[in-house]
């Protein structure tokens, strides 16, 4: 069996699965992730219909795209806290903001969510519009994670060293947790959950997806060697913030429902 990266001078041992580091594939897989997510979205929208009309959906998509772009970039930079601190002291913070690389999925999801809520508020869209995004996001993130795995050590998503039999060698000769594969498996499960034919309130599928993914990232990031701020990395703090917002949203929805019933 030939593994990616074999024969390129990497030090592999029989206990590790050789992957290597191939960062050039990352943008290709990232674009495939966007394309596959959009294809699933189109398919679902065609099959299930939509709760909003087409111009409103464009508005929601635009809010999601801009919010995700800004959120993923800001959190991606914040994630590398020591680099940000050094750039701040050197007066290069603006240069860092526009340097290549450094995007995060959690920042993209939270930024996209807030972007959608903002444009919905401005344009008076009152329906929950996220359900159609739940499965496409599972598919898109899973495809993107293949790129993260192949990128290896060049990507900041690798796991901590381990001696488990399924440890992967990302080119540095050290066996590591294949956290990207763990995440793909989790996303398959989450995709099945949000696709089940349950009778759920409008918007519940997206909230299940978002809450599930944030909880997952909070847990899995304990096996990633990222810089810590007060005991957790920046992504984990963002996950906690996102989960708190989701809980507040759920409580607000529950109170409103109770008031309606009382009235």
């Amino acid at each position, binding site marked *: 069996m030939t593994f990616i990266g074999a024969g390129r001078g990497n030090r592999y041992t029989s206990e590790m699965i050789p992957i290597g580091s*191939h*960062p*050039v*594939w*990352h*943008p*290709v*897989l*990232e*674009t*495939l992730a*966007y*394309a596959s997510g*959009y294809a699933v979205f189109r398919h679902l929208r065609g099959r299930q219909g939509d709760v909003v*009309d*087409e*111009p*409103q959906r*464009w*508005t929601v*998509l*635009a*809010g999601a*795209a*801009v919010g995700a*772009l800004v959120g993923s970039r800001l959190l991606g930079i914040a994630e590398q806290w020591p680099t940000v601190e050094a750039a701040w002291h050197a007066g290069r913070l603006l240069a860092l903001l526009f340097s290549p690389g450094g995007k995060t999925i959690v920042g993209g999801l939270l930024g996209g969510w807030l972007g959608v*809520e903002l*444009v*919905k*508020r*401005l*344009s*008076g*869209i*009152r*329906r*929950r519009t996220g359900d159609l995004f739940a499965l496409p996001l599972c598919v898109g993130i899973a495809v993107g994670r293949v790129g993260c795995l192949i990128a290896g050590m060049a990507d900041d998503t690798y796991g901590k060293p381990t001696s488990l039999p399924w440890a992967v060698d990302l080119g540095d000769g050290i066996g590591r947790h294949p956290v990207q594969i763990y995440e793909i498996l989790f996303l398959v499960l989450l995709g099945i959950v949000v696709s089940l034919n349950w009778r759920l309130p*409008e*918007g519940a599928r997206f909230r299940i997806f978002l809450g599930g993914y944030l909880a997952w990232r909070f847990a899995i990031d304990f096996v990633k060697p990222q810089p810590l701020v007060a005991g957790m990395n920046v992504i984990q703090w963002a996950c906690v913030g996102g989960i708190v917002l989701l809980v*507040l*949203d759920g409580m*607000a*929805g529950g109170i*409103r429902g109770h008031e309606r019933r009382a009235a």
Partner: protein
Amino acid sequence: MSEEQRSGFPFARIVVILACTFGVGLGLCGLNGVLSASGAAMGDSNSVMGPLMGVVAVVSLLAMVLSGLGLILTVIAWVVSEAFGLGWGRSDPQTLFGKKDDRDPKNPE
């Protein structure tokens, strides 16, 4: 009245299209890197991949730069048009976690 009819200009559609173009540019940029890693040299007229890589590099760079700039400018124009009341109707604002529209479409009251 629909969103697009209210705003008069399809800012949302343009933003999404530019974001997609940026994504395609990113993918082409990566494809160029993959071709480079496979040993092809840019501008090498003796190989099939050489001229192709030059084209891919130029197209990906143009796509990313133009769509990125276009995205920023369109969002600014959208925000400005809203600030001067040219776009969204604000007849029915809602809170950030506002209640969903659970009215019966057949009986709005």
